[in-house]
């Protein structure tokens, strides 16, 4: 009986934490500027409209060609088919990273984001820059 109660408590806590960690998306509609930088130059700069409940990932996934990482961090076109966890973007349009030697750093209004692409809350007028960075580089 004690085991069943403990199992129930832990599973309930897990579900609670899981829901708490989920990003509920933007609070209102708005527009953001998306910039893609390949490490040397800007290759895309465009304004996109988002709607209430959208995350940054929803927005870029809808408007740009993404390559995501699968569970082994290998490139996959299946960006929507994720089981738990956050998506990891390896490629945007023709700009590709490989995760081991390069990755996409995300800057929100020129500030390095501590959150992943699906955790960032969109705010009207934000400038979001995806910039390729060499791992181990500055």
């Amino acid at each position, binding site marked *: 009986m004690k085991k069943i109660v*403990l*199992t129930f408590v832990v599973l309930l806590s*897990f579900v609670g934490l*899981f829901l708490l*960690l989920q990003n509920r998306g933007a609070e209102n509609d708005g527009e953001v500027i998306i910039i893609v930088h390949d490490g040397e130059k800007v290759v895309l700069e465009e304004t996109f409209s988002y709607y209430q409940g959208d995350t940054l990932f929803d927005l870029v996934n809808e408007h740009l060609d993404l390559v995501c990482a699968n*569970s082994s961090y290998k490139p996959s076109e299946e960006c929507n088919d994720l089981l738990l966890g956050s998506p990891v973007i390896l490629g945007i349009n023709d700009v590709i990273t490989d995760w081991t030697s390069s990755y996409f750093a995300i800057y929100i209004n020129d500030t390095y984001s*501590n959150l992943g692409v699906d955790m960032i809350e969109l705010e009207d007028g934000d400038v979001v820059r995806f910039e390729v960075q060499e791992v181990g580089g500055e």
Partner: protein
Amino acid sequence: METRKMILLAFAISILFVQEQVLAFLPNIQFTVVLLLVYSSVFSKKEMFILIFVYVFLDSMYYGGLNPFYMIPMLLAWSLIPIVHHGFLKHTKNEYILAIFALIFGFVYGWMFIPFHMIQTSIMNPIPYLVGDLLFEVIMGTTGFLTVLWVYKPLINLFALAYDTELYHRVSRNEL
């Protein structure tokens, strides 16, 4: 080391490695923690270090060409199980205490990688790593807790049978 023990160690490593590959499609859901606790209850600390080294070596070779940024934290993190079990936990077989340890270990395992990722990426802010890994740590802690709570005792009994021939024959003869 006795041949029998070496064979048992080899079997233990095979089970550890295979279950991880079988469950690889589920993020951080695995029986590694409960299995290492079962092994730690049966093997000595020295034997556990050998087992963990071979397991981590195989795993790192299979996944990423022995990348030291993954291999070293894995070695350190998994080694914590026999160190804590043989030390602080005084070799306890109480599944409740071990389940709590497994819950905490899920988080410690994730944190162990942070300094190595910081060196590898040169991004010295630990917050992105902590935030990014939190969900996986919660999954690993929960899985560890539940598997230890429910599976540790049956597994330890099963393993004791395989480990102790005399015990096995007594059970076969219905003497126990």
